[in-house]
């Protein structure tokens, strides 16, 4: 067992030897090593988070035909550090009438709800925090803590805009949890387990080819869960100034902002794990765990890039349209897709692999087509109710 | 190893706290909070009996899940009632909601 094949185990064994050599009991040493592992993961994530700020600003600049940060350091790479220094030395205000304890806990919870997600992310076959057999539910549970942090921030700020923003955001998050959880069940059906590492190991064919519609719905629900455009009602700058984080300044605001970026990257990672094979890429993961990490980080960045692409392309949707879209379109679609996939999975259980894949793919396409047809006919009827039947405009008066 | 009695006494204490909340609070929402505490105490007992009894028999966990579903239903209907009463009477104090019909 060399370091290059299983770095975590080798490092843990080495540390165990060192600690017990100092006369520490084995159990205490193991707990200490666990803490060190968590510390390492969180440190790596926070450092990555600093660079996510730079990536986000560069990408949005390109989308908007600008250059982005380019003054500090090569390609503006030092810019995020300058931002951090600015955020830290800024005056740390607490609004009058604010609920101080709740106000200060909310940014921490927001960051925590993102960081705890990484406990179940398998970075390589041997490198993962914990292989929970209920990983899919854990994902939703972490989202619940994020919801709580937003409502705490909005309420404790003692500001109308913050409260309205928090209400909107919580309404969106709670309702989009339904299609999201439903879509998490589809990889669960394919893999026969909710554990993230089992889902990856079973993906000889990427699940996006088996259930493309599920991947799309998961992406939409994930963007809504993140509260990014086009679902960024909580921050609606034009009507709410800045939404739930309006009263936060300095590093407390920085926690919300960094938490959002890392959350987007994390959901890119989960999109990769659930539908794009995670760390698997043509057997590359067998060569070295470090290659596997590179593969999953690359895929996560692609997912993150898609989320950014959507954010900087689409306009904000009105809150009632958004909730109606979820409850009247996305949720029924998710439920019917789940039923179709479960039925097809049972019917094709013993079929050859090519028939299984094409059957799944075609049934997904059929469900998507039917849903779009129904949506189109309903919207046509709604339009006719408002405008009267469509009339042919005569040319040339 | 933690003996079963610790869990049972813990659950009994939580149940009594919930009972105190239900009997003593004036606000109807706070009364519902007390009911949640009592339901959670019951669930701790169910999970503890599952773990300390025959692990193969999942009855304890199944019952706990049914309790989750019932609690969710109870809270949604209960809070809807409270909000409806608040709209009509402009109060959520349980003592003041004393007419059968208005």
């Amino acid at each position: 067992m060399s370091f290059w094949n299983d770095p975590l185990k080798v490092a843990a064994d080495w540390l165990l030897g060192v600690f017990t050599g100092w006369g520490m009991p084995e159990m205490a040493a193991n707990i200490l090593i666990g803490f060190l592992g968590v510390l390492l993961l969180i440190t790596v994530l926070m450092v990555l988070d600093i660079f996510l700020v730079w990536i986000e600003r560069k990408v949005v600049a390109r989308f908007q035909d600008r250059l982005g940060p380019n003054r500090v350091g090569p390609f503006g790479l030092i810019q995020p550090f300058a931002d951090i220094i600015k955020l830290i030395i800024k005056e740390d205000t607490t609004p009058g009438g604010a609920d101080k304890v709740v106000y200060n806990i909310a940014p921490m919870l927001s960051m925590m709800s993102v960081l705890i997600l990484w406990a179940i992310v398998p970075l390589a076959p041997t490198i993962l925090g914990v292989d929970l057999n209920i990983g899919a539910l854990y994902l939703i549970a972490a989202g619940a803590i994020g919801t709580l942090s937003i409502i705490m921030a909005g309420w404790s700020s003692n500001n109308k805009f913050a409260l309205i923003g928090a209400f909107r955001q919580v309404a969106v998050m709670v309702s989009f949890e339904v299609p999201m959880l439903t879509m998490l069940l589809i990889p669960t059906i394919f893999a026969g387990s909710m554990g993230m590492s089992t889902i990856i190991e079973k993906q000889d064919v990427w699940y996006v080819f088996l259930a493309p519609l599920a991947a799309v719905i998961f992406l939409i629900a994930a963007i809504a869960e993140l509260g990014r455009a086009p679902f960024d009602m909580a921050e609606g700058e034009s009507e709410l100034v800045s939404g739930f984080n309006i009263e936060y300044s300095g590093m407390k605001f920085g926690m919300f902002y960094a938490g959002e970026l890392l959350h987007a990257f994390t959901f890119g990672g989960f999109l990769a794990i659930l539908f794009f094979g995670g760390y698997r890429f043509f057997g590359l993961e067998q060569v070295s765990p470090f290659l596997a990490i590179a593969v999953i980080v690359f895929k996560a960045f692609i997912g993150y890039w898609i989320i950014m692409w959507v954010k900087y392309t689409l306009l904000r949707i009105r809150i009632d349209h958004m909730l109606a879209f979820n409850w009247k379109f996305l949720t029924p679609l998710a439920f019917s897709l789940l039923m179709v996939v479960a039925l097809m999975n049972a019917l094709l259980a013993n079929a050859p692999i090519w028939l299984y894949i094409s059957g799944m793919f075609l049934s997904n396409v059929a469900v998507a087509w039917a849903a779009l047809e129904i949506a189109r006919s309903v919207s046509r009827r709604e339009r006719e109710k408002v405008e009267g039947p469509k009339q042919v405009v005569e040319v040339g008066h | 190893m933690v003996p079963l009695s610790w869990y049972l006494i813990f659950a009994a204490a939580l149940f009594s706290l919930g009972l105190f909340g239900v009997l003593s609070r004036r606000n109807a929402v706070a009364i519902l909070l007390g009911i949640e505490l009592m339901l959670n105490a019951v669930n701790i007992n169910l999970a503890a009996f599952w773990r300390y009894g025959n692990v193969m028999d999942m009855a304890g966990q199944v019952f706990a899940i049914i309790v989750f579903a019932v609690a969710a239903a109870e809270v949604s209907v209960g809070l809807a009632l409270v909000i409806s009463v608040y709209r009509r009477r402009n109060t959520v104090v349980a003592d003041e909601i004393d007419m059968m019909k208005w």
Partner: protein
Amino acid sequence: MTGEQIVFLVVALFTLGSGFMVVTTRNLVHAALWLVSTLFGVAVTYAVLDAAFLAVVQVVVYIGAIAILFIFAVMLTRKDVRDQGPQMNKNWWFGALLAVMTFGGLYFLLQGWSGLSKTAAAIPAGFDAVAELGNELVSPAAYVLPFEVASVLLVAALVGAVYVAFNPRSGK
């Protein structure tokens, strides 16, 4: 005292302390937030009891839905009561007495029971509680009927809640 017992005691004290705050805090939003920490303590208790599924569902259902619903309800119903006046009714001492008597009675009953000092057997190797639970919930020989009844109850509660909270005057 083993490590497991220390963990249990810390969790239990944290949970009971938050539970006490739930029933005594004057500010109702704080009471709802203390309820969240109580529920979290109970979730950790489930995890200590090796019921991982229950622990996660506790966080999803109770913290993610029920506690949020409570916070919403408190905010929607506090125009006039805004933490003024007594939060306890005038019979609160009787409630306290009854609660203490309930605890004492339960404690007394438990003292006389022989299975009290029982310790848990180790979970058999290869036993997957989540898979077993899933099988039992949908198997006709086990609990499929209560499961379906619970789902009907949830639908009924959903419809009922919407109907009750519907405001006919504003049409919303």
